């Protein structure tokens, strides 16, 4: 499982700046009206507002974009996409930034990246996610002994109700291994 994260963000990587091109194209017509910011349920917790984030994308301020937590705080409610007067796919643009952070394995966004990668690893192995296995993979990857405690009470409740069987992570047959491989290979093709 590829859960390695980089220790530091390398902003000197000139090739990296091209990564933003598809995101920039999505928000090219932004008029900085702030409807997205005003519509976002998570804005109260963001260090950079969505409106400002799009400005940073348009001006290629890579460092500020990936230092901020803004895109990881997008919960995909689609209010901004629905209301944007320019009809821009803003939720998708947030997703594209999440994908870039995941691809580079940025330490700052380690928790979200490992959470989603653990989920997909369980899917790759078995085709369908096994909730208990997925959370075990996530806890192991995070290496924080206190983290499972936050979910212990809920986990026990779910087990007592017979909703999640106690499963030891197993490699399985790699049910979707071929699909995952093909998706990764073609990821390089624009």
């Amino acid at each position, binding site marked *: 499982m590829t859960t390695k994260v980089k220790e530091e963000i390398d902003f000197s990587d000139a090739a990296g700046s091209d990564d933003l091109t598809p995101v920039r194209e999505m928000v090219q017509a932004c008029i900085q009206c702030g409807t997205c910011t005003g519509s976002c349920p998570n804005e109260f917790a963001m260090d950079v507002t969505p409106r400002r984030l799009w400005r940073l994308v348009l001006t290629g301020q890579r460092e500020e974009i990936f230092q901020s937590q803004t895109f990881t705080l997008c919960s995909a409610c689609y209010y901004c996409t*629905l209301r944007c007067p320019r009809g821009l796919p803003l939720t998708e643009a947030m997703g594209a930034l999440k994908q870039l952070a995941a691809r580079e394995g940025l330490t700052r966004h380690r928790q979200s990246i490992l959470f989603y990668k653990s989920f997909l690893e369980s899917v790759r192995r078995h085709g369908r996610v096994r909730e208990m296995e997925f959370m075990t993979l996530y806890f192991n990857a995070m290496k924080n002994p206190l983290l499972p405690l936050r979910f212990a009470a809920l986990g026990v409740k779910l087990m007592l109700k017979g909703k999640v069987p106690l499963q030891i992570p197993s490699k399985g047959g790699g049910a979707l291994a071929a699909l995952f491989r093909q998706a990764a290979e073609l990821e390089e093709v624009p």
Partner: protein
Amino acid sequence: MKYLYYPGCSLEGSAREYDRSTRVFLTAAGAELTEIEGWTCCGASAAEATSRNLALALPARNLALAEKMGGTKEILVPCSACYLNLKAVEEKVKRDAALLDRINDILAAEGLHFAGRVRVRHLLEVIVRDIGPDLISKKTTRSLAGLSIAPYYGCQCLRPYAIFDDPEAPQSMAPIIEASGAAVHHWDMGGKCCGAAHMNTKMAVGMELVRSILSRARGADAVVTVCPMCQMNLEAYQDKISKLSGENLTVTVLYLPQLLGLALGLSEQEVGLDLNLAVTAGFKEKLRESMDTAA
């Protein structure tokens, strides 16, 4: 009313009462479900956050499998996140032939091909449009009169695709709830966000979003949901949030087909009421009272 059925992973695990109640309620309402053979994960919010290709291929794989099945091409999906992932592929390939090619290049790894000939439908749309309040009212044998129900839609069955309801001010559930004999708890939180996976990765933010929803549910006997993630967020952290905010925010949270199943005369066990995490003793008492009155 015949549908291909895509349950999604949660409905085999933490949301199995959603699966159970969806099946028994739809059967009681006269609908017929055929599960898609060999279905796999839709990618949830994980694929979108890591790989564009997986975010397309994982849902498309299931649409391709659905196309291979005979009969109806209508796919019924109870989970809003699964629904949107599948729907987005259906909608996007209609306008983008190159995207369809890209998807098929990935699916080729499994010898699958997607032609774009399916119609993805959320369970709520099917309940509202195909079944409708009249049929529910006619089939209601145990009126839920005396109960006040807060309809919670969440985000992804409403937005970005406005297929069956107003994405800003949803109201499709109201006539359905009324058809069961219950009253609608009027609030403006029906289409607000529960925080999705924030409860796992950004807990403080998730708790604040859920707190604001639960605090507006006060006065309702129950909140009904149409998504396993909304359900889990609203039901599983009530004690913690109540303690943190210093107010009692405990409220019963049910899946819509559980509520409707009860109205149609199905037992608490048949709709899986014992599996929910937040069903108050007060709610159960009131439910039994309303049923006794009706009987």
